[in-house]
């Protein structure tokens, strides 16, 4: 009985439209082990965690929890079965006390069925002591606490029940080195009590500090599970990236006119909340496709949003064709020929319930109107032109965008910007949630547009995508550009190392300053 693994996964598969998020993943978690999940952005870690904690269900495959079939229909069922997750984004009830948040799912009651305040306080204090927050008064309102304390409370909460498996998704992202140390210590204690811990972190060093075994995922498949002892950082990166490096690409280097000032020059850009010390500076020339690589949260999205005026930058100067320009709003950016395809097409790019023609014309209404009156014919013509150019598959331009597939929806967003005939096109995750066919079409389109002289800057978490598409790549790490790589020198491992660089360095620096 004691040999039964804590959790076994057999052939777990999860299909999203056009994407195979998890492809027959087998995984065994032993009792009392700390098991790392590693992989690049989009490798399937989050999908797997969602299935483990009942937030999502697999299309096929089965799970066995302590020898019994495990099929959670919702997060509560998972919690009852003893699986708790400490999420990356915290969900707390700000206006309630620490104690109430900690024990929200099982508030102690007295014989009258009323809240037992004494017991609540007592149990909360015990839990807080476990995560080293002995000094914190359990009646403190959560709204008054900082991120790190909230994170620790979230962890304490995961310990409140009889959790047999605790999943920690990037728990150290907001913690200081000292707090991280305490957390790692806590994880070891949990392990010694026989609790299984699944640990996800971008900080590879932490995996080596605390984990027993590591499972690497890549493109939704399990690559390997191996003991952490005897594995090196290089091994791990190689497993995450895969040996089969991107195939030879056909894209030829564009001939750039270096006598002209660059289409876009950025000097000393700083955006709100930027962590790195060095502000950003770079050039973007007509006809080239430049990639902006890096981990999620490294500042890529903030950079392109600042350039577009979607969020106001804190400092910095932008030059268009060598002219200093001021971009305070999307309207300013559009006037300068700069367009941004945002990362979230449903919330920021499209008006789902309005027809395709209205979505395509939204950013270029003067072109389809005369003295304030809409010209229905001109609008439909413009929309049909874009539909043909972008090969959007639809029944009619009067159809609501909601009815289209993800790939075709994304093409509508692209059509909206291309109708403006931009000079500089910024794209944030242009092929996220897009099927393979549409992805290739979008890539081909961007190459065509670049050949016609458009300056393109692409943000993507899919390194292969950038390697296939771009002439040059800039790598961001923790708000800093850590490298710039020309196409001839594209190397997945080297780029990934640059993407992790500042995180590793920051962790190392802070650890040394903390130690006496």
């Amino acid at each position: 009985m004691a040999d039964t693994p804590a959790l076994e996964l057999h052939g777990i598969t999860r299909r999203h439209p056009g994407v195979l998020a998890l492809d027959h993943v087998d995984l065994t978690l032993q009792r009392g082990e700390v098991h790392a999940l590693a992989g690049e952005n989009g490798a399937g870690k989050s999908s797997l965690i969602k299935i483990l904690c009942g937030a999502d269900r697999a299309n096929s495959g089965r799970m066995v929890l302590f020898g019994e079939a495990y099929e959670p229909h919702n997060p509560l069922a998972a919690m009852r079965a003893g699986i708790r997750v400490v999420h990356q984004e915290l969900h707390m009830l700000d206006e309630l006390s620490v104690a109430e948040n900690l024990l929200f799912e099982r508030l102690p009651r007295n014989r009258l069925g009323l809240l037992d305040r004494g017991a609540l306080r007592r149990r909360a204090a015990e839990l807080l002591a476990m995560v080293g927050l002995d000094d914190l008064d359990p009646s403190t309102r959560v709204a008054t606490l900082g991120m790190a304390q909230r994170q620790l409370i979230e962890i304490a909460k995961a310990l409140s029940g009889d959790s047999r498996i605790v999943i920690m998704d990037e728990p150290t992202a907001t913690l200081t080195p000292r707090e991280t140390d305490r957390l790692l210590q806590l994880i070891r204690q949990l392990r010694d009590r026989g609790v299984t811990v699944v640990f996800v972190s971008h900080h590879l060093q932490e995996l080596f500090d605390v984990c027993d075994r590591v499972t690497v995922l890549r493109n939704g498949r399990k690559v390997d599970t191996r003991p952490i002892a005897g594995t090196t950082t290089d091994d791990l990166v190689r497993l995450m990236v895969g040996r089969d490096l991107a195939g030879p690409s056909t894209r030829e280097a564009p001939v750039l006119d270096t006598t002209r000032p660059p289409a876009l020059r950025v000097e000393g850009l700083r955006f709100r909340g930027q962590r790195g010390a060095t502000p950003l500076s770079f050039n973007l020339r007509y006809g080239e496709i430049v990639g902006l690589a890096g981990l999620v949260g490294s500042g890529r999205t903030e950079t392109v949003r600042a350039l577009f005026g979607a969020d106001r930058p804190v400092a910095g100067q932008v030059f268009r064709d060598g002219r200093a320009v001021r971009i305070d709003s999307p309207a300013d950016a559009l006037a300068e020929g700069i367009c941004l395809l945002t990362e979230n097409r449903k919330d920021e790019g499209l008006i789902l319930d309005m027809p395709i023609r209205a979505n395509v014309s939204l950013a270029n209404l003067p072109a389809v109107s005369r003295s304030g009156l809409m010209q229905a014919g001109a609008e439909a013509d413009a929309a049909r032109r874009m539909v043909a150019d972008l090969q959007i598959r639809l029944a009619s331009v009067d159809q609501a965008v909601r009815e289209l597939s993800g790939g075709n929806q994304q093409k509508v967003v692209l059509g909206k910007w291309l109708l403006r005939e931009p000079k500089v096109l910024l794209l944030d995750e242009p092929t996220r949630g897009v099927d393979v066919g549409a992805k290739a079409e979008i890539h081909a389109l961007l190459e065509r547009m670049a050949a016609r002289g458009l300056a393109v800057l692409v943000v993507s978490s899919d390194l292969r995508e950038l390697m296939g598409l771009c002439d040059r790549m800039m790598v961001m790490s923790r708000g800093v550009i850590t490298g710039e790589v020309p196409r001839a020198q594209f190397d997945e491992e080297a780029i990934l190392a640059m993407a992790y660089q500042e995180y590793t360095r920051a962790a190392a620096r802070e650890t040394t300053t903390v130690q006496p």
Partner: protein
Amino acid sequence: MSNPSDALAAPSRTSLRHRTRAVLREAGIGVALVALVGVFAMLSPIFLTSTNITNIFTQISINVILAVGMTFVILIGGIDLSVGSVMAFCAVVAGTVLKLEGLATGPAIALALLASVAVGAVCGLANGAISAYWAIPSFIVTLGMLNIARGAALQWTQARSIYEFPDAFNDFGSATVLGLPAIFLVALALVAVGWFVLNRTVFGRLVYAIGNNEEAVRLAGHNVRAVKIAAFVICGAAVGVGAVIYMTRLTIASPISGIGFELNAIAAVIIGGTSLSGGRGSIVGTLLGACIIGVLANGLILIGMSDFLRQMVTGFVIILAVVLDVYRARLTRAAD
């Protein structure tokens, strides 16, 4: 899915289908109205007489005018609770202008109308600007305006009504043109203008777009605040027109008139199929919604229902309309 080139073949059959679907939405409300008329026609011999129909048109005119403006505000995802009070304020200002010494009747009426529309528009501007700049829900801002405007109307007149307007002015309220009440024709004209603005202008397009996805509109380079403020100004201006029309009916300008009118206007908009969360709905729907409320009020009196029960029935109809709307939204989602 068809070949992309099919979409180039101008108005395809599916294109027609999509247009029809939008028209059917309004047709549903129309069918409800016709059914209601049919029921009352059977229950009361008086209901379908021309006198009674003229009565109904007269009774709903003010509400139609107010509801046209309200439609703009609700489409951008707002609400205007100040309509009734602002109307009283507009009326007493217009009444004062009408009574100015030394003005000929014609210019006096024109000036009164202008003053009324201006007062309404300024109140709308305040509502819109405050809620747009400080991102305060319009519910709160217009609740404040509801009190401010009512207080202003009472202060302006020292709580007295203004009356004895020129005959030409008072006669308009009971005049008929081609058998229809003149004031109803004014209301229909506003419906036509509202329809044109919402369906044919760039501004109308932005009103719908903002109601659906404000952030996408902002990122497309548009001035979202300006459009939102304009919607409130339009609502206020419509109130100004409504105030003068109401004066011609009552032949007085009273600082305590218009109490609760905002709720009737909101009810007409909602029953007319406009979504309270914005972005979906139409002026024609609003007209039909106002008709339903009017027919219900009139018909229930004719069959002898008490005031209190009538109020209850109207309440049920409002809730029913919203419930039906939820189901309709679910069905269209499910169809995708």
